[in-house]
């Protein structure tokens, strides 16, 4: 196994072009486990730890440009206001040691259906900026996950940035595991209210071959909120709407039975999380509205 250590991003892209099968490694929290257990034996490891850009983030007007290697700890500490859903998800990643090393780029590269960042990215709205010697492109997060542990990257591409829309409303993230910390998701759910566009977006983890949005549930809820004028009147969303939304979220799952949980449980739990996260975010939205009105 050759260990390639590019000193710059350009060198990294060149190395990846020369060795398309090279496996990029940054925090190593996924890759090293696979190597140690002999599940994977790449000819080349492409070490990205010398590329300082990847550890940086920039808060822009409408979105946050997050370097692929920014560790979860930094997201929790620095981007809670801009990316509340992702910060909550980051908090559920493994242990403090892993959170100090692992980042969203690796999560996307592995593209596991259980990746903790994915539901939050799907709900917030994000684009993955990838680059190769051929040039760069932005992949919408909805088109990024193409199969179990497969993503839309070409063989010569590397993930550089993730552009995540800054929260314009409350966001929540919930994850079910069978212990209270350090656990891989049995299933997970992210939800973001977008008052600016008057839409709700969702993300479901570990309950389908890829992370998915609950499209039908979003459409139903967006229509119901619109019809009832809820974005304007700030009233409580009727329980029947919440229930229907939760059922549609369950219906968006295509889970399997495995050692971590049954398909039936995953469907059920996603429904419960959908109901609760909608309630929490909507309560928070109403509270913020009242505060704004009070100030006015």
């Amino acid at each position, binding site marked *: 196994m050759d260990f390639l250590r590019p000193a710059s991003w350009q060198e990294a892209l060149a190395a990846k072009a020369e060795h398309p099968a090279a496996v990029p490694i940054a925090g190593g929290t996924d890759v090293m486990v696979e190597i*140690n*257990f*002999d599940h994977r034996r790449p000819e080349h490891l492409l070490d990205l730890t010398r590329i300082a850009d990847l550890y940086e983030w920039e808060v822009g007007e409408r979105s946050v440009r997050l370097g692929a290697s920014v560790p979860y700890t930094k997201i929790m500490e620095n981007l809670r206001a801009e990316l509340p859903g992702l910060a*909550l998800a980051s*908090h*559920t990643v493994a242990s403090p040691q892993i959170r100090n090393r692992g980042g969203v780029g690796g999560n996307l590269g592995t593209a596991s259906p259980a990746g903790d960042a994915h539901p939050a990215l799907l709900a917030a709205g994000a684009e993955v900026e990838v680059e190769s010697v051929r040039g760069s492109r932005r992949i919408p997060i909805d088109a990024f996950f193409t199969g179990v542990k497969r993503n839309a990257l070409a063989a010569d591409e590397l993930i550089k940035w993730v552009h995540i829309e800054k929260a314009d409303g409350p966001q*929540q*993230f*919930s*994850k*079910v*595991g*069978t*212990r*209270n*910390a*350090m*656990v*891989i998701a*049995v299933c997970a759910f992210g939800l973001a209210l977008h008052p600016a566009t008057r839409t709700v977006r969702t993300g479901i983890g570990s309950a389908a071959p890829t992370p998915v949005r609950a499209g039908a549930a979003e459409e139903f809820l967006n229509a119901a909120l619109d019809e009832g004028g809820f974005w304007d009147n700030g009233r409580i969303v009727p329980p029947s709407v919440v229930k229907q939304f939760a059922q549609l979220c369950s219906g968006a799952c295509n889970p399997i039975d495995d*050692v*971590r*949980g*049954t398909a*039936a*449980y995953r*469907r*059920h*739990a996603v429904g*419960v*999380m959908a109901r*609760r996260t909608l*309630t*929490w975010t909507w309560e928070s939205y109403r509270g913020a509205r009242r505060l704004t009105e009070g100030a006015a």
Partner: protein
Amino acid sequence: MTRMPSDKAPTTITQGSRAEGGIGESTLRPDGTLKVTGEFAYSSDMWHEDMLWGQILRSTVAHAEIVSIDTGEALATPGVHAVMTYDDLPTEVRHYGLEIRDTPVLAHGKVRHHGEPVAIVAADHPETARRAAAKIRVEYRELPLITDEASATAPDAVLVHENRHDHHAGHVPHPNIVHRQPIVRGDAAAAARRADVIVTGDYTFGMQDQAFLGPESGLAVPEEDGGVHLYIATQWLHSDLRQMAPVLGLPEDKVRMTLSGVGGAFGGREDLSMQIHACLLALRTGRPVKIVYNRFESFFGHVHRHPATLHYEHGATRDGKLTHMKCRIVLDGGAYASASPAVVGNAASLSAGPYVIDDVDIEALALYTNNPPCGAMRGFGAVQACFAYEAQMDKLARELGLDPVEFRQLNAMEQGTLMPTGQPVDSPAPVAELLRRVKAMPMPPERQWESSEGADVRQLPGGLSNTTHGEDVVRGVGYAVGIKNVGFSEGFDDYSTARVRMEVVGGEPVATVHTAMAEVGQGGVTVHAQIARTELGVAQVTIRPADTQVGSAGSTSASRQTYVTGGAVKNACELVRERVLEIGRRKFGSYHPAWATAELRLEGGKVVTDGGEVLADLVDVLEGEAVEVEQEWRHRPTEPFDLRTGQGNGHVQYSFAAHRAVVEVDTALGLVKVIELACAQDVGKALNPLSVLGQIQGGTVQGLGMAVMEEIVVDPATAKVNNPSFTDYLIPTILDTPTIPVDVLELADDHAPYGLRGVGEAPTLSSTPAVLAAIRDATGLELNRTPVRPEHLTGTV
């Protein structure tokens, strides 16, 4: 070329120099700081120049004939020094086992479980060894699987072991049953007719793993005399030695063993793992050989706790008195016997729990199957039974409309009660008192997650995973109490040996304690020094590394080491003291009449009378002399259980713990947070109160793990393990660990050294059923299996 490993050799531990530090004090562990700071040398840290790395090839199927093994490509790999299969074993003795020698060192003709060792490789790099092992071609022809009682005892069942000749073979009803122990006392059928209520239940107990953090590892160094020196993490050096030497074709004195740093055990190191394999490769290559399992292999490298199915029937009169109990406990022993016979004896004899029940009809048995082998784990047969009988107690109390604690107290055993085996409990048995104490503890406040800034999710089920802010969270409270035997039972010669030396070093009297006791974290090294200080009145005590240069200490298991090796150290110290006083009388007796007349003690480095008068300095008494005693020590003997009736004084001592569990359950998601696990336990005498607390907290948490998360999942269709990793075999983290208030009773057992009672296992028993009872209380669900998964609480199994 025989040397100590040049790095990370076992360290000689010297206790601090305080004059105090005798029994009853919470002296600190000598290895504590090293372990917390990461400096302690575990067995996996050992290194030797020129050493090779051993690797084991394990079966990929659970039950199959081996058609062929081709090692050619592996042997041809550069850097490989040896490849061995069954046919390369050096002598005709090719099997080992704790009690029944049924386990082949390397598979012979067939494999009986997933992960069975088939071949071993030594190479100059661990990666080379691993790759070479992967190049060994094994052709299997799969055989029908035996996975449960029905498949094991079917008329046409394939025999897991053909031609059994072990001492249980003659009395078992089927060759796929390792051992069966009935216990019959009184007339359960007649007593059942007096019952106003009868409750029955079928219970399932999953397969728990010891999940110790230090994986199996050791270093075998060939010696000039043709022997071998094994540095090893184990629970019982001499038991390993007895099993290893015949297979290696060496007399026992040519197999030397030294304990290296043990990273936890909990029963999982009672059986051999890589000991023989490392020695075989070292003897074959003439080079030191180190083997370290990774976490994945560790799940295949040691036995697990027996999963069990248990059927119980209890009756009681309207006024709450138990009339009778019938039970049938089926333990899955897996492919090899390991400790199954003794686990059966425990499950049967302790199946009635700490209750007065005169009429019982009990049957316990262990199966041979193609599932992973099961054997010793903390609680050893008593754990499975306690889970079931405590569920029964709650059911009965509910039927009778009685408080579950009061109902238990009404039937609690006490000193003098007869066990189902007819054995009287002849030391304190404060069962009702322990229950009273846990019940009397203040309850943790409700809704602790509420704060001015919203819900504190760390206080809620799901924790930081942020699944509830209080919705659907229901509190439940449950109680349980258990009984565990201490020491090896059923007539086993359960002795220990201690060598104690006293001499003057650097102008100070120093005691040296040498035993073969495996320090696996229980704190024996701390307690031995405390005993020596108390008995010999010295400040300085040196604890020698455990090895086979001294007689056997027996196993670090069955809650027995403080009792038995502690007893042996105490006894040896007493003999040393007598010899020291003899020397004193010889040297100084003529100077003071008290030498001849008074009761003399050693205290503060001096010989003093019972009135406190100093007669001499130990330094002067021991000037130019050293006193050394090595002596075996035995607790009172036990008897085997009658094979038909189960009667017999089979146990040495009993220990008791009670728990109250307070849980909060997210009833919609089926997630559980254990808020508090209060424990009361009688320890006879706390030799080191801090260590006692650690044992009780540790056992409590291990029981919690069994209640809500820990289970090795074996696919019934393939008998293969589905979750051999810490990713999917979950053990409690600190966020899963509740507050554990502990109330320690010290009611002396007059038969035991200092009146002590074994501590380590009892809290593991009652913790699991207390948590289950609390979850039942919160949810109203029946919950007849453990561990409970979210599916069981949400109807989504």
